[in-house]
């Protein structure tokens, strides 16, 4: 198992930006700070700054609650709850919506993306529709969604689904169409049927991009979750944050934000690992 998580920005650790040249490592080298140490340092300083700002009284707790208050709130919410549900229950409600929407987006987006990627006619016909809906802010069509589909779970999941769908669909179509022509020709010369071509060449070839699409989609999904939970929710992290904000309970707001960031980050890391495992050739030079 790899020990350091893959970094957000895939940058080599030593960059050839002038001197000194990359030195092949001498045998026994001294301890050097690693990426993880710097990250820890960075997070620690942020926390310290936060604590100092609030402890000094420069910022009122109403505007920014001190870290210890948020931590205390965390303990409280673990079983005490806020707005008739505990933090795990809010989290679970949100996760359910996210995963349901993700599942639907994958089930719809990947096959549709393949069809668009493989058949130019399908692309010509669907392109305008996708182009139209893609840049639309979910909040803009939220009123229509409510008018059309009500305020139940369907509307919430649908909103998140729509946010995830576009990236998945577009990445799939692009991935499928950018599978090397050479590889397609090679498989055909080895006697592949159309179905075998799809199954053994096009799908695996598009897989890295498809997973990237899912990662981007998930990000868009999180952004939309809170909007979705504007719709008459009774549970969910977004609902919790909004209600707390309305009652000016800032520590719950900050806590909710931190939980969302952590969960989103964990999911993203999981997907990156999955990508590394499923498509180890991705990013290799050949």
């Amino acid at each position, binding site marked *: 198992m790899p020990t350091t998580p893959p970094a957000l920005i895939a940058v080599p650790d030593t960059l050839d930006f002038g001197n000194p040249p990359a030195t092949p490592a001498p045998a026994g080298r001294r301890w050097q700070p690693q990426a993880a140490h710097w990250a820890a340092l960075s997070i620690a300083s942020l926390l310290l700054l936060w604590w100092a700002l609030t402890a000094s009284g420069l910022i009122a707790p109403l505007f920014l609650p001190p870290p210890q208050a948020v931590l205390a709130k965390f303990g409280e919410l673990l079983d005490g709850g806020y707005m008739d549900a505990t933090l795990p229950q809010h989290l679970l409600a949100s996760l359910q919506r996210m995963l349901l929407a993700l599942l639907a987006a994958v089930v719809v987006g990947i096959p549709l993306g393949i069809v668009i990627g493989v058949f130019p006619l399908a692309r010509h016909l669907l392109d305008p529709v996708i182009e139209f809906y893609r840049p639309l802010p979910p909040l803009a069509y939220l009123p229509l969604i409510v008018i059309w589909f009500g305020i139940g779970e369907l509307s919430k999941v649908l909103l998140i689904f729509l946010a995830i769908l576009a990236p998945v669909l577009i990445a799939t179509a692009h991935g499928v169409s950018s599978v090397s022509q*050479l590889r397609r*020709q090679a*498989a*055909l*010369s*080895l*006697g592949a049927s159309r179905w*075998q071509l799809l199954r*053994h060449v096009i799908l695996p070839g598009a897989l890295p991009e498809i997973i990237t699409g899912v990662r981007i989609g998930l990000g868009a999904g999180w952004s939309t979750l809170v909007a979705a939970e504007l719709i008459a929710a009774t549970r969910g992290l977004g609902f919790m944050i909004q209600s707390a904000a309305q009652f000016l309970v800032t520590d719950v707001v900050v806590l909710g934000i931190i939980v969302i960031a952590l969960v989103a980050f964990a999911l993203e890391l999981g997907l990156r690992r999955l990508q590394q495992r499923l498509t180890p050739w991705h990013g290799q*030079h050949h």
Partner: protein
Amino acid sequence: MLQVDKLGVTYPGQSQPALHQVSLSLARDELLVALGPSGCGKSTLLGVLAGFIAPSQGRVLFAGQPVTAPGVERAVVFQHDALLPWLNVHDNVAFGLKLQGADAAARERIVADTLRLVGLADVAGKRTWQLSGGMRQRVGIARALASRSQVLLLDEPFGALDAFTREQMQQLLLRVWQQSQRGVFLITHDIEEALFLATELVLMSPGPGRIVQRLRPTFNQRYRAGEDVRAIKSDPAFIALRESLLHSLFRQRHEEAA
């Protein structure tokens, strides 16, 4: 087996044809080599034979039937390798047989044999991106050899190999060709390679791509009769023919430049 009749190919939007009036035939026991400078249409010709490119004029027949699509009877080794990175070396070589639903035991035997032939038995489990350029090219060759093709179409298959491996692969190709009774169409721009391997050699020239010279060298026969490679290649007859071909090529280029 393969029959090319007055073939012409013009790429969309180009004024000059990439191929013009090219006629060829390739029998089961022939090793046809196309030699020519960069851009003279060699890969285009191979693309038509493989069924990747449809002719603009003329026609291509395989066993009497027009070629309209790629097919399992015509295996291709590409100029730039076209391996599948999600499969390891073994699975890349086994790929064609698997597609055709070959019996697993037979498949394993063929794959193992072929990997041994190209000297890759050790790296069967490696991923393709862990190989050097020369190894990758050999995987591509093995994949074509392992398939159930009747013709091998090879586009500069030995370009990325060093002199030693290159000569080994040339000898391997001759052996496989002889044993398996498959027709071979080989593209190269290495004159020595062309002379050594060909039963028939066509010299091509660009603008428009066409055949300007046909030869039937016999060095391949001498090698099969047991003569030493190095001896053949330093034979004054070989060197003379090499120089004459080089001369034709140079004249071509000078005329072009003029």
